[in-house]
């Protein structure tokens, strides 16, 4: 797995307009007691083509494909566009600890829950005498 560096900013500056053609990647979202897990298909994107930005409660994923330099296609079922997706980060996520890695053309983003947001296990004890 290759680690991806993400950029954090808390300013209110609007995201830069995106001028390249882009499509939304296919995405899985999972959750357990400790974290949210986003898995996105970004085929053809090398590790350094991925940019993750956290701004307030928004996570923006941009995955840039190298420009294709192919001869004309006989068959074209997919365009080699970039991938762009935004996610709203729910409350209780430790945004400073968001980490990501790429593997075989997929991007895995881990959003750990802040300690306070983790479900506390309440031990239920029988009342004496029951």
């Amino acid at each position, binding site marked *: 797995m290759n680690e991806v560096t993400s950029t954090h900013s808390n300013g209110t500056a609007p995201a830069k307009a995106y001028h390249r053609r882009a499509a939304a990647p296919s995405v*899985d979202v999972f959750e*357990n007691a400790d974290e949210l897990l986003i898995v996105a298909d970004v085929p053809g994107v090398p590790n350094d083509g991925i940019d993750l930005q956290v701004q307030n409660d928004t996570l923006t994923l941009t995955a840039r494909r190298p420009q294709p330099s192919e001869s004309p296609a006989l068959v074209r079922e997919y365009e080699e566009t970039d991938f762009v997706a935004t996610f709203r980060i729910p409350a209780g996520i430790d945004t400073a600890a968001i980490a990501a890695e790429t593997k075989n053309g997929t991007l895995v983003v881990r959003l750990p829950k802040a300690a306070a947001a983790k479900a506390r296990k309440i031990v239920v004890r029988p009342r004496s005498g029951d």
Partner: protein
Amino acid sequence: MLTGWKDFDDTLRTLDRLQRRAGLVLEPFEPFGSRERVRLRARAPWPATNVFETKESFVVKAEVPGLAEGDVSVSVEEDALVIRGERKAVVPEGYRIHLRERAPGAFTRKLPLPARVDADAVSATLSHGVLTVTLPKAREALPRQIAVKVG
């Protein structure tokens, strides 16, 4: 020529498109507010494939994100390139599913070849979830220069 590349499962795809439209109409009426939203993408041919032609070869590119080398096999069978593989369901254990768009499953795609290729010289690479198969044309399929003699 190009018609040779028409995929075999055109009919299936048309059916699928219809089904997909019907699904779009029905979706808002789904009575169960299921917390686990499972939204598998319609079964468009997977993996999506592009085919390029150069002077000496055909180059097939297929998007197979999540597949490692062992998950995909490539072969030339009669007059077709066959790509087989499986994308395994990777729901990590103990996790709840919020959204599921990355459909798992086994696949076979059979792409008729528009010209004879040198099956022994076919090569394939997998990089960042893109499979690239290079199929050199057979000698008899290469363009030949015909000398024009003065009569």
